């Protein structure tokens, strides 16, 4: 009997630990941009705010600008490194997914160069990582219940390149507090970035196909 319960605990432990990771949370302290507020809950892109006259399909080119990490999230040299790494990581994930999605005829990486002038309508994707922490592995392992959780939140803006008007804003957030022996904070953060980049590009695909943000 005792052997059976030990076995059950081990099997459950393996199943539980193998299945944990980052999960979506409600974004906090999201800043509105002009009249736009990220209030509509989208199934993939987090919270979204759209300009009433925004017509996505007219834009055939997108310029992806580098994201920055909010200064409030940087307290020491480790944070500086993490901020640089995660901004680059998110940029690479967005770039790869935008190119693969086939929404735009051209996807331009603003770290390499500017888009040459032309008649086509261009949209710029700007944003920042407003929350970023790897959390504490020790707290996750010994305390749990959300203590020491790794967290990441991104806030984005789509800007019409001609008028410089912001036509869409979004906010998305992930947290992860459970893993093998507390889990690796960096892995949680990169997983969060993967999920948010994936959700954002799926939202754009939905909008460019004529959909509206919301449940699907």
């Amino acid at each position, binding site marked *: 009997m005792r052997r059976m319960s030990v*076995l059950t605990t*081990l*099997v459950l432990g*393996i*199943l539980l*630990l*193998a299945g944990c990771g980052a999960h979506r949370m409600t974004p906090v302290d999201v800043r509105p941009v002009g009249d736009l507020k990220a209030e509509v809950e989208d199934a993939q892109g987090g919270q979204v705010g759209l300009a009433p006259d925004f017509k996505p399909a007219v834009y055939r080119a997108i310029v992806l600008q580098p994201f920055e990490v909010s200064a409030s999230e940087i307290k020491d040299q480790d944070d500086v*490194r993490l901020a*640089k*790494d995660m*901004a*680059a*990581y998110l*940029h*690479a*994930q967005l770039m790869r997914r935008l190119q693969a999605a086939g929404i735009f005829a051209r996807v331009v*990486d603003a*770290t*390499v*160069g*500017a888009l040459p002038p032309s008649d086509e309508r261009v949209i710029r994707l700007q944003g920042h990582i407003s929350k970023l922490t790897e959390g504490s592995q020790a707290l996750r392992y010994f305390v749990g219940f959300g203590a020491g959780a790794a967290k990441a939140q991104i806030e984005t803006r789509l800007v019409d390149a001609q008028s410089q008007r912001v036509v869409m804003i979004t906010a998305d957030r992930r947290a992860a507090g459970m893993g*093998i022996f507390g889990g*690796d904070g*960096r*892995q949680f953060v*990169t*997983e969060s970035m993967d999920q948010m980049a994936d959700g954002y590009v799926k939202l754009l695909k939905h909008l460019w196909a004529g959909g509206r943000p919301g449940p699907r």
Partner: protein
Amino acid sequence: MRRTVGLLLIALVASACASSVALTVPPVDKLRPAGWREPVRVALGSIGGEPCFAEALKGYLALPGGLQLADNREAPHTSLTGRVDRIEVHSNRGDKEVSLLYFSAFVITAPIAAAMYGAKDWHADAAAEGSLSAADAGGRVIWEKTLTVSVSETQRTMPSADALNAAMKTAACQKLAATLLNAFAEHVSAPPPSR
């Protein structure tokens, strides 16, 4: 008997690590500006930091079209210097290995652990931070850029830690070199700002 089976499983996991890994992340394409009738020749000056960065710069310049490495007979358009300040590789490959070894130590859970963790992907990311600057024939800096790039990979294979680190470092160096040189090529081909 149990101990023998456990030890055998551990030995199997430890010895199964491959000594090389083929990454699926595609290399950054070389920019070949449409307006260039002839390649622009550049010289490579001092390149600091990990040697893979200098090798990646040379590899990029050796590809046809766009920016090319000047040979001894011709005067270069510009001279490039730079350095890679930091390359960091992070992965959960080790976590996967440790979990597999840990749960394989219990004979009863060993097959479950082998099935679950054997079928679990590892994920790795590498960041490279560096800079490149271009100087004209008079030594005046005409362009410079500092950048951090990131590459990531997800696979189910079980490479050794050294193989994974080496492959990710090379990929990060290649991306940093190609992105910086593409940015310089874009700068050379851009029309001068109008007044």
